[in-house]
């Protein structure tokens, strides 16, 4: 059987596919999210560490780490769709990029927000100009800049391409910004945030964390599919297939 790889690169066909995939992603997100939260609350140890243990409050790790991962990955997804759009000049890629961006911004905010609630009991401070915290904050600014630029331009084509270019410039700059804040000499600036320590982590905690990450991925899929459907309808409002589609759905 010959499979046409470009079948779903047309907004008209992708609209249907996204509509079929969205409920599945939502269901998976809810199921795995519930499982992860149950596991995180009831199957993991109540305290962590040796002499100065972290008590119940460490459980924010599940949301914190998962949303921090998603915040970074979704930016890569955003930049990738932008690049594909600029190279192949496909409208749908830009629509996907625009649909991913708000979710990414929300996860970035969530990572900062939960991090500050975790920092208060464990470090004794809401905020610290630590390299990791600062780069996450800058990632948030990049998302905001992308969304602001996109919404400031009325012409959809220019908005798509201009913000796509900005996303790619941002992607190039992120490592530079990260290393400039994460100063090369560790003696000169102490970092509060610990480095990643995945290998030493308790199996149950890891399970809950990875499951919740999967749930967040599914949630991102769900919101992006939902948003991209709206964008497709808005942009293609004048075409016959949208009118037929809307008539079939019994809506407006």
């Amino acid at each position, binding site marked *: 059987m010959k499979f046409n790889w470009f079948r779903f690169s047309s907004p008209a066909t992708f609209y249907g596919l996204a509509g079929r995939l969205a409920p599945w992603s939502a269901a998976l997100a809810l199921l795995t999210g519930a499982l992860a939260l149950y596991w995180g609350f009831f199957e993991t140890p109540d305290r962590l560490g040796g002499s100065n243990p972290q008590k119940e409050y460490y459980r924010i790790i599940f949301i914190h780490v998962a949303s921090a991962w998603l915040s970074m990955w979704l930016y890569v997804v955003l930049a990738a769709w932008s690049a594909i759009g600029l190279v192949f000049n496909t409208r749908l890629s830009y629509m996907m990029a625009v649909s991913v961006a708000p979710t990414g911004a929300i996860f970035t905010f969530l990572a900062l927000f939960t991090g500050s609630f975790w920092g208060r009991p464990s470090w004794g401070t809401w905020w610290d100009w630590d390299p990791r915290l600062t780069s996450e904050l800058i990632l948030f600014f990049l998302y905001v*800049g992308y969304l*602001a*630029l996109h919404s400031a331009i009325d012409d959809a084509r220019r908005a798509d391409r*201009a913000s796509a*270019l900005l996303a790619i410039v941002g992607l190039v*700059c992120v490592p530079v*910004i990260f290393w*400039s804040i994460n100063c090369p000499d560790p003696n000169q600036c102490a970092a509060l945030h610990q480095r990643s320590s995945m290998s030493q982590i308790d199996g149950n905690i890891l399970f809950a964390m990875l499951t919740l990450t999967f749930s967040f991925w599914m949630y991102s899929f769900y919101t992006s599919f939902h948003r991209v459907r709206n964008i497709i309808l808005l942009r293609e409002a004048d075409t016959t297939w949208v009118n037929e589609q809307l008539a079939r759905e019994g809506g407006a």
Partner: protein
Amino acid sequence: MNGMLGTFVVIVRRDLTLALRRGTDVLTTLFFFVIVASLFPLGVGSEKELLRFLGPGVVWVAALLASMLALERLFASDYADGTLEQMLLTPQPLSVLVLGKVVAHWLLTGLPLALIAPLLGLQYGLEGASLGVMALALLLGTPVLSLIGAIGAALTLGLRGGGILLSLLVLPLYIPVLVYGAGAVTVSAIDLADVQPFMALLGAFLILALAFAPLATAAALRISVE
């Protein structure tokens, strides 16, 4: 004169002539820089130790803001009178034209900032070598600001509320220059030998920005003016 160098020189000369006929534009940026830097001692108090501590950062942040505010003018007048469209149609590579415009822009905004910065440093009680380091770091850093900023200026060309949007896009990207620029001045007060890696990194940023920013700006201009 022809070839890419010729094009470059023509653009630089044209932009310099145009700007110098309306000299106030150059002075406004410069005075903005001076005023912002002079506001801080009034706000935080004039203790010598405090000011010496804040000085490098404050001067750098003021330079960032000044060069960002000047960016709006980079393409705006050419866009308004249609010159920019003609430039897009020329057979010369657009990135060379862009580089010429950015260099002229830097000569009019960045260079004066770097030259006057030691005076502001005196106001903050910086001494001797630190003043020189500050001027040198600004000489290396402000062209990077102009180059990165040009991308933002091209993207926001002709948009409503372009100026405030531009700051949202460009300021996060300025951070590495700020970190190492201010870092160089702070370190120079302790040991002058430690300044070298900071300068090397600023130089590296400049080379990278020189190589890639004009290309990105050219692409952005084509997107904005089509």
